[in-house]
């Protein structure tokens, strides 16, 4: 019983983690709280759906197309739409207000575009929906594969940020953009890169989720809020915090569903979040302000 719970929660956490990591990069480095993150996720899910049903290209293969596309689009969004806001903001508070308003507008635009294209209907397809046995219990192969890909991507990100020159530059911008600028780091470029990378991670999560989730054009905001909860609980700006928080929340969700009452799963995750912040106001891995 316990092993099932643990494995199931690990599988669930993997999908949450990718999106939360994307968001935390965007907020931590580019200083943009991206409310349209869930729409990026849904956009990628629709992309995978279309490629699968129309051209029989599986979601794993479609990642190769969707993830770079999301990167490019969001690079452009940051460069043309968001960086003017960053430049004109006098302080973090002003930027927060502006970025909330702007990404809220963006949310509506992307959602509206998806509604125009797909209507409000539910979409779903079957991919790798077959059992695979892990530790003596069967799990959905699609969930296991999604977790595997998510884990690979997360590891790649971790090494990219910690072991490469450009990764170090990005982390420097996250800590102190002014000082980073002084040591000849192109801060606007690093911010645009981080924003685009964050959206690419989110899009990757969306393609993976589409393998086993039923979705429609209006569901994005649900995922945005879930990711925000994870990001804040983990501590802003640290991808490791996002990963830990994602797995903790998934564990609580599965544990409560299996041992207490499935009716309380969401209440339990929110309670965990609230309690965490009560005792650690800066989040699990956050730096003290």
């Amino acid at each position, binding site marked *: 019983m316990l092993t*099932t*719970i643990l494995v*199931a929660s690990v599988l*669930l956490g993997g999908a949450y983690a990718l999106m939360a990591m994307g968001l935390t990069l965007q907020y931590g480095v580019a200083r943009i709280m991206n409310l349209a993150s869930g729409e990026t996720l849904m956009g990628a899910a629709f992309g995978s759906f279309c490629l699968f049903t129309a051209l029989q290209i599986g979601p794993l293969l479609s990642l190769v197309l969707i993830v770079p596309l999301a990167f490019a689009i969001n690079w452009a969004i940051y460069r043309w739409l968001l960086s003017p806001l960053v430049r004109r903001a006098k302080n973090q508070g002003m930027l927060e207000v502006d970025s909330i308003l702007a990404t809220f507008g963006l949310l509506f635009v992307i*959602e509206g575009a998806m*509604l125009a294209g797909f*209507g*409000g*209907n*539910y*979409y*779903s*397809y*079957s991919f790798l*929906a*077959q*059992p695979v046995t892990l530790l003596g*219990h*069967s*799990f*959905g*192969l699609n969930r296991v594969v999604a977790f595997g890909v998510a884990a690979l991507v997360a590891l790649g990100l971790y090494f990219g940020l910690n072991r490469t020159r450009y990764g170090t530059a990005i982390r420097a911008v996250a800590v102190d953009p002014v000082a980073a600028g002084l040591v000849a780091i192109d801060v606007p470029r690093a911010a645009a890169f981080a924003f685009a990378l964050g959206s690419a991670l989110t899009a990757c999560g969306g393609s993976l989720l589409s393998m*086993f*989730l*039923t*979705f*429609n*054009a*209006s569901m994005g905001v*649900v995922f945005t809020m879930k990711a925000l909860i994870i990001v804040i609980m983990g501590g802003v700006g640290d991808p490791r915090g996002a990963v830990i928080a994602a797995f903790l929340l*998934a564990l609580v*969700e*599965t544990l409560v*569903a*299996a041992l207490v*009452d*499935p*009716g*309380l*799963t*969401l*209440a339990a995750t929110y309670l965990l979040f609230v309690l965490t912040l009560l005792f650690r106001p800066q989040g699990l891995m956050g730096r003290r302000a």
Partner: protein
Amino acid sequence: MRKHLIGTLAVSAALMAAGLVQAQEIKSIKIGTAAAKTGPGAGGAGVTHWPNVKLWVAQVNKGGGILLKSAGNKRVPVELIEYDDRSSNDDAVKAIERLATQDKADFIIAPWGTGANLATAPVFAKYGYPQIAVTSVTDKGPELAKRWPNSFWLLGGGQHMAGSLVELLKKMNAEGKIGKKVAMVHVADGYGLDMVAGARPALKAAGFDVVYDKSYPLGTQDLSPIVNEIKGLNPDAFIAFSYPPDTFGFTEQSKIAGFNPKVFYVGVGGAFPVYRNKFSAATIEGVMGTGGWDVASPKIQDYIKAHKEANGGNEPDAWASSVQYAALEMLQQAIERVGALDRAAVTKELGSGEFDTVIGKLKLKGNVRENPWAVGQWQGGSFYGLSPTNLPGAHTPILKPAWK
């Protein structure tokens, strides 16, 4: 131009009441509708509300329109005015007010969802529009009809729907096909609670042994813990009063877990064509779901064909879609019988008349449709109505084979 038209219509409506109207003065019949195009309700309304409204308007206008005696016994085309209520009841109220007072709609199609229908009922009543509520599962139908005599409730309530399901299980048990162990799970939202409130006493009265009875919150993404636990209890029948995303989730998880009860019942979404398209007809053979229709009847067959043509190849679902379409047919027939855009008379006719619709002959009692389809089953890629067993076209249930 538009203002002019409204003015003309207002005058013509006044004249009509006096029976003095001239034939050429009614150019179109304005039908208003407001339902969710965005927000959490958009998924459901996108399946049962909008496609059928679109289909009905196309069909009526293809035939020249609605026959009006008051317009010199001529057919008058329908003009549709549509709004998005954004899945918000406050917006639904505003949209219906707008249709009634600004657009001066002749008739208004009831919104989608239990909450929106209840919130807008006082507005329909205030302006004297008939409200033919389809997509709202409520046991309070008779009470509501008494409060708002212009409202009609077509989809039934949890007591009937769940009761009918239990009847079916009882029969299968008596025939020795299934045992007495039932596992039941429901979404903690309007539909799930209404259904479970009906199912609990019925299961008890029928002597079933309910081994699992829990709720899960709206928006739960991982249903595997529930499925795994229920599988361990090894029930004869699995009942999930679920919403579409969860319906898909339960099915996929059960298949993966190799959970094979003899009766596998899912809620909203089980009768959606996209459900079959996702899992394939062979996989979902024997799955039961909320809803049903007499799929073999020529009328339903024609309806399915027309629905596909009008909606880019999309099939209707086998529960509320045909009822929504039937509600619109009722409205058309009532208007034609009255022969004028007289809302009071049309309301009266809706309550007392008998109508010939895609779902068969329809006559309301106390403004509520009696004995609607409650349970259906996928058999050979089609969703057949099973229960109430006395309805025409009711199929015999089969035991669900193991997942393929």
